[in-house]
Structure formats: C-alpha cells, structure tokens
C-alpha cells in the first residue's frame, strides 16, 4: 500500500483489474502459445501441473502465462511470441488448463532461480502473480517464507522436466506475490 502512504503516490490511480470471465477461450489462447521452444528442441523441457480450487477440484477454465530468462540467464528482448518462428526464444508463453485442470508448457530450463507466472481464471476477480522456483534454487525472497509455504513455490523435477501445481485456496495454497505499489 505504498500508494496510500502519501509519499510515493503515483501520478494517476491505476485502472482496476477484473476477472477474465468464462469466455476468453476463443480469444486469448492460440496455436503455439504454450510452446516457447518446439517440442523437439534438444533443450526442451516440459513445465506442467494442475490448477486446483479450495475444494481440491481442478479448475478447467484457468489461463496461465510464464515469462522467463533463457538458458544463460539473459532476459529475452525479442518479439514473436504470437507467431512462433520455430527458432526465436522470446521467453513468454500462454497456456489454458484442460477439462481436468492440467496445463503444459514446452520451454527451456532458465539460467535463473525462477520463472515468473501469472494466473487468471473465471471466478478469480483479478490476476495473481507467483514464481516457479527451480528445484534446489534459493534466493532471499524464497528463504524469507515459512518452510511449509515455501515448498508451494518450488517445482518438482520429473521425467520430462518440471511439475508445478497452482492451488488457489486452502492448506496447500500457493504463495502469491504482490509488488511494491500494488494494493
């Protein structure tokens, strides 16, 4: 709530967010959205998981976006995420959950501790931000979390790459992140 403190007021008040609603499915997802690299790429890994609600039920109408560094840790500054050309790594992807709440990205292991993630869903009033930490990664933010919450941000290594579940509510609730100036 820095904006309310008086000293750091933005010039203008932010436009509020709203739920993505039930009908984004024919507008936002697109062919190739989940594939930051082609599935056959020699460095390709799969980042996948399930989105769950407070009753442990899968959320079939969620949309996830990821944004990440390349394998060397550089932040990509290249265009071309909507029309994938098959060789440019742009660092950004978008995936819908399927009818059992599963999502799947094809990407590379970043040369950085985490992949940034945004979560949207019908019934979720505003987007949520989180981080997908690589197994074994540590940074001051992750270490500042209570251990039982910390593990919700750490992906699990599996045969194809990384598994990361998003739990919107409840005991296993994922740690969601705000940034200074957000309220």
């Amino acid at each position, binding site marked *: 709530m820095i904006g309310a403190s008086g000293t750091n007021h933005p010039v203008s008040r932010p*436009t*509020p967010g709203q739920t993505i609603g*039930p009908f*984004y499915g024919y507008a936002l997802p697109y062919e190739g959205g989940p594939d930051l690299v082609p599935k056959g790429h020699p460095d390709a890994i799969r980042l996948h998981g399930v989105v769950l609600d407070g009753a442990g039920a899968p959320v079939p109408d969620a949309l996830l976006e990821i944004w990440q*560094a390349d394998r060397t840790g550089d932040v990509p500054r290249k265009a071309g995420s909507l029309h994938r050309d098959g060789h440019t790594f742009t660092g950004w992807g978008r995936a819908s959950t399927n009818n059992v709440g599963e999502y799947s990205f094809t990407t590379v292991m970043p040369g950085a501790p985490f992949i940034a993630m945004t979560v949207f869903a019908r*019934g979720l*009033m505003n987007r949520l931000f989180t981080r997908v930490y690589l197994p074994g990664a540590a*940074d001051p933010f992750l270490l500042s979390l209570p251990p039982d919450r910390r593990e919700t941000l750490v992906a699990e290594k599996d045969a194809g790459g990384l598994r990361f579940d998003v739990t919107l509510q409840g005991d296993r609730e994922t740690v969601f992140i705000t*940034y*200074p100036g957000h309220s």
Partner: protein
Amino acid sequence: MEQKSRTHTAVRPNVVVVTEAVRASSDAAATTQAEIGAEIAAIAATRTGEETQPRLDYAPYRSSILRHPTKSPYQADPEAVELFAPVFGPQDVDPLEADLTIQHLGEPIGERIVVTGRVTDGDGKPVANQLVEIWQANSAGRYLHQRDQHPAPLDPNFTGVGRCLTGPDGTYRFTTIKPGPYPWRNHVNAWRPAHIHFSLFGSEFTQRMVTQMYFPGDPLFGLDPIYQSIVDPAARDRLVATYDHDVTLPEVATGYRWDIVLTGGHRTWSESA
C-alpha cells in the same frame, strides 16, 4: 455455474437437460437479485478508505468463493525478468486485427463504434509498442464461444476478437460493434452490463492485467457483482469509457475514449522513491 441462463428454451430439444442442471445447481440458481444486492451493500459498507482493485474474496460473485486465496500475499521486490515485459512486434499483430468489423465477408449487425485511449503507467509514461487484446459479445449479447448458450443470435459477420499494438504515445484504437448486455447464472435474472474485455501488458511483468471496459450510464451497474467487486466507487468509475464526439467519425461510428493506467513501474519507482 456461470453458464448463461436460458429462459426461452421451451422449443429447444435439450431443454430438459438444461432445466435439471439449473435445479441441481446450488443456491446460486435460487438466489434473488435483491439478496445479491443486500450482500453487495453489506460488503460496500465495510470499506474504510481508498481501494484501487477488486476484492478477491467477493462472495456475491459465486464462482469466486472457492477460487480466491485466503492467505495474505507476500510482497517481493521485482527482480530480473519481473522488471521487463515480453516484447511483441509487427510479426505478431496485423494492423487489420484492430478492426473487428472487417473480419468476415459481410458487415456485422449493430452500432459501430471506435474505442480508443492511451495506456500509461502510474507515472504517466506511455506504454509504447505493447500488445492490447480485446474480446466481447456481439450486439445481441452473444459470444462466439461454445460455452455461451444464451439464446440470442450469433452474427456470422462478427467474431468479437481484436488485437493491436500501442503507438509511441501509448495509444490503442479499435473499431468494433457495441456489445449487448447478457444474462448469466450467478443468481436469478442476473445480467452483465455491456462490456469489452481488455488484456494489457506494461513495460514490466508486474504490470500485467486483464480488465473490462464499460459504457457510460449502464442501468445494470448497481446490480452486477463483477463490477461491484471493486467496492470503491472512484475506482470502478475508472472502468467506464467516456463518449467523445471528437472520436466519433461522421456517418461511420460513434466514439468512446478510455484511458488505461497500469500500476507504477519499479525501475522508475525506485528513482522517485
């Protein structure tokens, strides 16, 4: 739950299924607008100061009940990728995608409108060359989406999806059709005010947002739990476009202006702190 109601389905073959689905669905189907209105008013009364975003925990929108986090978020200083945004360019978006009235052989039915405005960050800096995506119902209030079963006509000449890149000063501009209000199944006789969904990127990952733009003077504002989930009236007013005669094109389209302010950028944030 949030599938649209179909009250005029008597002649449709699947009416039995739909009716049972309504009966089987929870209290939502039996809740009246007056009851939802009382919940909205009770929550509004809990506001003690300025709020700039919707409440995540907002039970009048029934689908939010199991989908809002109950634990406090943790504040992080944005790092590395979070201080940058994905880049989109001309290879991603064709300029023609900003005109939703020319995507088919014929012209869509409805009131043709121009919607334009600027995307800036909280410090007033334009967000240039960035992707804006929109989607909306047609003039009869129907989406071209298989889950939308509202018995209003589809328009073979209207898809309702558009994209553009902002200009150097942050300006976006779409030509489209004014969407109709539509019913949904949050409660009995629930209707959404007419709106256009907007998806926006900033110059940092932290500024990513999805929202909805409304039209001035909509009589459904007070009744809609999604609009009212922004409990501060000053904040929800910021989602309402302004009619602007300078945007109106003679004999072509009426014009609306809607400026979008993203949360402040953090690279500039630390400089100004």
